């Protein structure tokens, strides 16, 4: 039973996708030229590697880790120390290979800690990784020689003359280094899913008991996967160290680990490309959304709750479901429902957003008076009119959204039934 179509003898689809990905990485900074854009793109590359390595545990191994930042963070610290050693002349390696030092650090620490954490699976694993994460974070404030205390460790990535004029001074050069690493890491991690070990990892996720019956050691499979994930996480951390030229203790903190989990899941843990979407979202959220509103973490938490409840496969699964509908030629009749859903959801968001923003305004900058502007509408955070209006908009939106949702669900179920019938009919042929 094949799950996907393959071109013979040359797999054109694969070549096409990967060439497009490489092209996208190469052309992106030529399209978005501003300094901010290059920084954002660099961070996206770093986040993509981190989220994919995280998904090796969550999506492919069923291991919910709350301490992935330990490996990215320690990789970053080792990389910045390696960079400083290169600057001092005591370590004769090119600057471009510094992220590999971070990767090796991630691997070594994964070997060390993974032995303890991967003895268990499921919820116990989650708690132990959380504990280890806290352990490393608490240690980071205790040992200033290695972690640099409160100020962190800083370095300088421009060492000597450089090679053929590439000395990583300008951010674009660093971006291209990150792009090369991103492409290679994504390719390697995709290749890993097709190896026997990657396949066994999926088996361990789905049914560890049977894996043991067949004669594999589930614990060992988890441990090996954990080590490989640690290696890629370390590379991502090392790239981060090169990009920012400073590493502080927060990179091993619980907040960072939580962000990896949140966005990997939002992007979609069930598909390989899900975490890539998640990583792009993560950088956008941290760099751009946090500028727009004070309440962005609250919105993020709410979005996450809704995702877990209604789309446990994340954004990637939503895309794939609609692609399946499109493949059977039924997507066209859904667009009216989608439009209605989008409009009513926006109305709900506008109402809820106005309320949240008013409360935040009262809480944080009440000194500047109680008036604020929300999407161009002047609101008075202390006036009953604004509150009543916002509540009215919210409730109206909720009612309409519920109505459209019911219609849409009926329609959607009908289409899914049709698709199942079609697949059965094709199998019978």
């Amino acid at each position: 039973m094949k799950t996907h179509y393959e071109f013979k003898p040359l797999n054109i689809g694969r070549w096409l996708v990967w060439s497009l990905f490489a092209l996208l990485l190469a052309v992106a900074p030529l399209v978005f030229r501003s300094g901010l854009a290059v920084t954002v793109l660099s961070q996206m590359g770093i986040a993509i590697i981190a989220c994919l390595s995280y998904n090796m545990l969550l999506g492919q191994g069923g291991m919910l880790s709350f301490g992935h930042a330990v490996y990215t963070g320690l990789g970053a610290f080792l990389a910045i120390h390696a960079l400083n050693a290169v600057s001092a002349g005591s370590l004769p390696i090119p600057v471009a290979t510094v992220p590999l030092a971070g990767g090796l650090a991630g691997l070594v620490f994964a070997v060390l800690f993974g032995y303890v954490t991967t003895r268990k699976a499921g919820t116990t694993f989650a708690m132990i990784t959380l504990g280890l994460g806290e352990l490393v974070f608490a240690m980071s404030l205790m040992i200033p020689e290695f972690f640099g205390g409160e100020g962190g460790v800083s370095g300088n990535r421009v060492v000597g003359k450089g090679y053929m004029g590439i000395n990583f001074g300008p951010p674009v050069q660093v971006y291209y280094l990150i792009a090369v690493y991103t492409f290679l890491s994504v390719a390697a991690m995709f290749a890993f899913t097709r190896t026997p070990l990657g396949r066994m990892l999926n088996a361990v996720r789905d049914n560890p008991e049977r894996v043991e019956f067949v004669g594999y050691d589930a614990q060992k499979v988890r441990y090996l996967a954990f080590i490989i994930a640690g290696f890629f996480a370390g590379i991502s951390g090392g790239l981060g160290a090169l990009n920012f030229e400073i590493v502080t203790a927060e990179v091993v903190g619980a907040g960072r680990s939580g962000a990896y989990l949140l966005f990997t899941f939002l992007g979609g843990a069930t598909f390989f490309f899900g975490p890539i979407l998640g990583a792009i979202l993560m950088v956008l959220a941290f760099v751009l959304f946090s500028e727009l509103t004070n309440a962005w973490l609250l919105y993020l938490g709410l979005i996450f709750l809704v995702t877990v409840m209604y789309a446990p496969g994340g954004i990637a699964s939503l895309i794939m479901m609609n692609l399946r509908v499109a493949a059977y030629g039924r997507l066209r009749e859904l667009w009216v429902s989608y439009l209605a859903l989008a409009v009513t959801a926006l109305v709900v968001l506008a109402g809820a957003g106005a309320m949240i923003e008013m409360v935040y305004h009262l809480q944080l900058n009440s000194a500047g008076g109680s008036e604020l502007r929300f999407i161009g509408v002047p609101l008075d955070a202390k006036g009953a009119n604004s509150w009543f209006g916002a509540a009215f908009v919210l409730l109206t939106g909720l009612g309409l959204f519920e109505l459209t949702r019911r219609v849409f669900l009926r329609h959607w179920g009908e289409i899914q039934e049709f698709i199942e019938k079609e697949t059965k009919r094709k199998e019978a042929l």
Partner: protein
Amino acid sequence: MEFFVISMLNGLSYGLLLFMLSSGLTLIFSMMGVLNFAHASFYMLGAYLGYTVSRFTGFWPALLLAPIVVGGLGAVFERLCLRKVHKYGHVPELLITFGLSYVIIELVQLVWGRIALEFHPPAILQGPAFTLINNSAQGLSLQWGAAPAQLCAAADATIRVVCSPFPATRGFMMLVALVMLGSVWLLLTRTRIGLVIQAALTHPEAVEALGHNVPRVFMLVFGAGSALAGLAGVIGGSTFLTEPAMAATVGSVIFVVVVVGGMGSLSGAFLASLLIGVLQTFAVAFDYSLGTLAQQLGVAPGSALLSSSYVKLTLSQVAPILPYLFLVLILIFRPRGLLGTREG
């Protein structure tokens, strides 16, 4: 001697607070298989709601009302969110509580602000519960309440007097925790409700066939667990600090307690929380480092070694990581936890 007694009692009271939290967590976990990541957030909510209610009604009604409100919120969350993801398995259940913890901390900061609150215990609990007086002439004596000044001041220079007060809030914390432990135990083992809960744990289908509404039992258990966390929050918040970071400081420690004690074992959680509470309290009180230890043993390490920060780290500085080190050691030597029954 008096230092040892007071430290021991402090450690026990902190351990009992941890147990108040981990008991609700363990209860929910062994019932539903859900590891409630937001349990510490309910603790925080309890503290904040307790603060708000106590401003209107005083401390004692707040001690009763705030946990009830928190329990209600927990039950509503179970009914609306957790029940929906139950069919997807345990990982999404954990994830939804994780998302909830984000939302709660943001909402708390939204409503109560980002700074610590002035949440004081009532006047009756503000003094010391008793004072240990160590008089080098008369020996050790105990005085209820605060000791009068003339007892703590030596009459002549040759007699050394040390007074060590034990705060009443901590005594009250121990009292509440023990009452709670007793009542939960009685409820589970001696009442019909407890019988249904225990049966729903192991044979949900059979219980359902006998006409009990198992989903509703789950909802009530989740609410009760959250209410216990809320109760701990009112007491912890008034004893220590009520601030937005209070959930994070306690959250990871109670997970350590649950793993060390053995997953789903209430008595294991009790033992582990007392152990960790005492361990941390004693560690904070000692200012010894590897360097001073070596010097006391008669080994003189070189000055370069003495100045390195690893050797200079005192036990009190290492205190925050002790629970986690304990966790790692337990996992290596006894993976199922102290009183855990099964592997896996």
